[in-house]
């Protein structure tokens, strides 16, 4: 298969303009005759649906929540990057590009990243015009802060709720279009499959989560903005409903899945409290601006009250190992360092399952320097959230944090147009693989979701539509639709009729443990090989012993969960396979066999490429394709934060 990334020629800084100038347009009078399906109403989906609606297309937008305003983008706390250089501290489009490419450990496509950096400034303009109440200085101008992995202040934020405010902005634009009738919104609808006609994406199958109705929809093209697959780990900072189903089912229909093993483990989450835990809560990375990370130097001190551990007996391990970035070292590096400290027996907090998995994030120095009220103003809501969950007061004693899965850089393969290898199937936001390489820098996912939705997809989708013309939309009565519908119904019925005794959650937990242990922060050949066979065993067991009470003709939460877990049980294997074959360490993918002095050892000669997987059927092994990463401007160097 030829993976053509369709990157325009010419210098990086003019590629997007040159490319845009060549994209075809659709006559305004014809736009309403094109039906576009957008699945997802997060930053990427809401921005794409509203922008396409504003242009006059007939758009249908789907989400599984009861309202588009609840997509998981809402949970982002820290902020959004943009190369505005309002701080006059040396930022520029080029610097944001370089930071993002380096942060991604040279495993992202250069042209996409450059475009992202270019579009970043227009995003801030757009959001401010929508009424997003970003933090401001006393002079009334926008405020910034610095974020992990960057040495300039380019992050815009709205208290600790940046994602909420950006999403509510996108939701308000989407709502305006729904009110105007250009977008029809279908909340509480879950996409269960993709329909191809003549090799093009021409529709989807959904289940109405209230009535249970399973039905097909036809369209001129399909845009997937369905978010990331972090819930393959069971415990993650994702919302309960986040799933891989929309992208995985599309993969089974022929879309390539790129770099599934690239997942991000965020260093600052609240540690696990016990067996009944259902999710992990992120503490914004911005806390690392004023908190110092430490563990006791001696294992004997790990069970002690932190106040009893003398200053000289504390190991501020990030400051020690990475003096120039210190507590602001990038996420993958900070996470791994925390894991190592705990593996050495120096972890803190209560024992869970016989181990102490936590490190301190200590604000006492900042409180002394700035006063409690300043710290409260900066992080009050986060401290409250922490106290609410743990019952502990972080002004009085250090917070306890531990890494947790947070973001997935892998996703469906897309070209420069954000179109997958299936014509007419576009993918935006966290669901695609495009911009973050092997590791994402803080505050850049919001930027990517909105760049895709507001400023890339509206152009590239139009180009596709102009190309296929108006005769392109097949009837939903066609055999292609009926076939996929029958297959979806079979699967739903198989789940409902199974006479097992086990719950979907119990399988999800077991899968999560395998993935966390073997495909988490440190991966080995032996572990991944075992994980693949364990997951297969678990999958067989699932289909024998799963129990899904209910008729499916009504609200049936167990059916939703079982369907999602069934897809994770297949996808988890693909992830481990990708991790097994990538015999190097890069970004969030750390293979213990490939390291120098405890740091990741990339192998550019063998692995400076995107791995894109093709489904080959139920029994055959998937096929791995490669898209070489060609760097015109960035200098591949060892990523050092020391």
């Amino acid at each position, binding site marked *: 298969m030829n993976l053509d990334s369709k990157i325009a020629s010419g210098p990086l800084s003019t590629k997007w303009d040159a490319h845009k100038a060549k994209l075809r347009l659709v006559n305004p009078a014809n736009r309403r005759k094109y039906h576009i399906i957008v699945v997802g109403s997060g930053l990427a989906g809401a921005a794409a649906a509203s922008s396409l609606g504003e242009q006059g297309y007939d758009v249908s937008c789907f989400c599984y929540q009861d309202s588009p305003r*609840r997509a998981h983008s809402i949970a982002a706390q820290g902020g959004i990057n943009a190369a505005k250089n309002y701080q006059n501290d040396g930022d520029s489009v080029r610097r944001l590009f370089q930071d993002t490419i380096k942060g991604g450990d040279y495993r992202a496509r250069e042209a996409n990243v450059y475009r992202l950096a270019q579009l970043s400034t227009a995003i801030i303009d757009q959001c401010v*015009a929508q009424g997003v109440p970003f933090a401001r200085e006393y002079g009334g101008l926008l405020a910034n802060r610095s974020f992990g992995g960057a040495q300039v202040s380019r992050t815009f934020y709205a208290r600790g709720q940046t994602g909420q405010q950006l999403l509510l902005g996108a939701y308000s634009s989407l709502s305006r279009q729904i009110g105007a009738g250009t977008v029809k919104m279908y909340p509480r609808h879950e996409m269960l499959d993709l329909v191809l006609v003549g090799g093009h994406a021409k529709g989807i199958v959904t289940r109405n989560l209230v009535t249970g109705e399973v039905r097909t929809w036809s369209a001129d093209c399909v845009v997937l903005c369905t978010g990331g697959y972090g819930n393959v780990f069971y415990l993650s900072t994702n919302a309960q409903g986040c799933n891989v189903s929309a992208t995985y089912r599309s993969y089974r229909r022929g879309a390539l899945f790129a770099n599934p093993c690239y997942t991000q483990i965020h260093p600052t989450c609240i540690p696990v409290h016990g067996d009944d*835990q*259902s999710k992990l809560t992120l503490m914004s990375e911005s806390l690392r601006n004023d908190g110092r990370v430490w563990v006791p130097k001696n294992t004997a001190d790990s069970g002690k009250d932190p106040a009893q551990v003398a200053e000289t007996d504390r190991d501020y391990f990030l400051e020690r190992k990475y003096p120039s970035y210190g507590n602001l070292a990038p996420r993958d590096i900070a996470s791994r360092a925390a894991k190592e400290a705990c593996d050495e027996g120096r972890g803190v907090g209560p024992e869970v399952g016989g181990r102490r998995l936590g490190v301190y994030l200590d604000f006492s120095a900042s409180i002394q320097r700035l006063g409690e009220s300043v710290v409260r103003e900066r992080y009050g809501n986060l401290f409250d959230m922490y106290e609410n969950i743990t019952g502990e007061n972080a002004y009085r004693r250090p917070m306890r944090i531990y890494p947790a899965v947070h973001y997935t850089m892998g996703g469906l393969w897309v070209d420069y147009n954000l179109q997958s290898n299936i014509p007419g199937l576009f993918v935006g936001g966290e669901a695609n693989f495009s911009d973050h390489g092997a590791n994402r820098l803080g505050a850049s996912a919001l930027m990517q979701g909105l760049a895709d939705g507001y400023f890339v997809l509206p152009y590239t989708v139009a180009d596709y539509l102009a190309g296929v013309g108006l005769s392109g939309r097949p009837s939903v009565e066609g055999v292609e639709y009926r076939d996929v519908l029958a297959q979806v119904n079979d699967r739903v019925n198989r789940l409902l009729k199974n006479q097992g005794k086990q719950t979907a959650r119990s399988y999800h937990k077991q899968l999560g443990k395998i993935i966390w242990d073997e495909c988490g922060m440190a991966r080995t050949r032996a572990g991944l090989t075992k994980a693949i066979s364990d997951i297969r065993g678990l999958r067989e067991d699932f289909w024998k012993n799963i129990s899904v009470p209910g008729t499916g003709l009504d609200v049936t939460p167990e059916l939703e969960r079982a369907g999602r877990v069934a897809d994770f049980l297949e996808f988890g294997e693909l992830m481990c396979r990708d991790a097994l074959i990538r015999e190097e360490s890069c970004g969030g993918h750390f293979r213990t066999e490939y390291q120098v002095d405890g740091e990741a050892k990339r192998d550019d000669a063998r692995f400076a490429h995107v791995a894109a997987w093709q489904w080959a059927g139920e029994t055959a092994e998937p096929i791995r394709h490669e898209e070489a990463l060609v760097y015109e401007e960035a200098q591949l160097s060892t990523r050092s934060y020391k």
Partner: protein
Amino acid sequence: MVKDNHSHSAEHVLNLRLRVWRQRRGQPGAFEEHALQGVSTSASFLEMMDMLNEKLVRDGKEPFAFDHDCREGICGMCSMTINGMPHGPLPGVTTCQLHMRNFRDGETITVEPWRARAFPVLRDLMVDRSGFDKVIQSGGFISIRAGSAPEANATPVPKDVSDAAMDAAECIGCGACVASCKNGSAMLFVGAKVTHLNLLPQGQPERDRRVLAMVRTMDDAGFGNCTNQGECQAHCPKGITLDVISHLNRDYLGARVKAFFSSTGKVRRGGD
């Protein structure tokens, strides 16, 4: 499981009796009673509900349906009335943020859906809140087309104005305000959005039509009138205060007055 450590908040287990609402769409509902043992005080309320549901599924019974997603207090999806109080007894938190350390061993806990005319029950603890979306669709936005925005710093916004707008913008659209109001009024929710947008310079051009349209849609969606009881503010998990209702009333009145004079005064060109 978790071994207690003297220096951390102590964990215990609770045995509970639960009275949980069962209902199918369009049919009358009733409470079902269940005993649940061994609930950790570190667990969240929804994790406790998960335990109950897991038990039901293992027994081949249907679990209770409830809305939830982020489980960190921001998506606004979770919506349980716990012991008669929307989002439970703790002020300033959503159902998903409520932890079991706030309950006593042996306690009976009553769990119901939001109770409001404008929020019909879809199943068990799940209600239909689409009325909120309709209100936003009618005017809860600033009309800005992607691509047409001016430079972000071109219009300075005084920090206090921006902060006040942010205070109002923190509303998560959960509907606890409606559920706690004996009239089922949505004034806190609508007031929060009107205040957020009408405070900002960017929101000025559509200030009047926004408030008129949103109030009209709110009335059409079946929400009740506000009689200043203040229960909404007491149960709002995001600290939205009655000030937003005053703001809404002021803007509404102003817009009505202007609409009155413009309809009797000059002929309007272009319409709206």
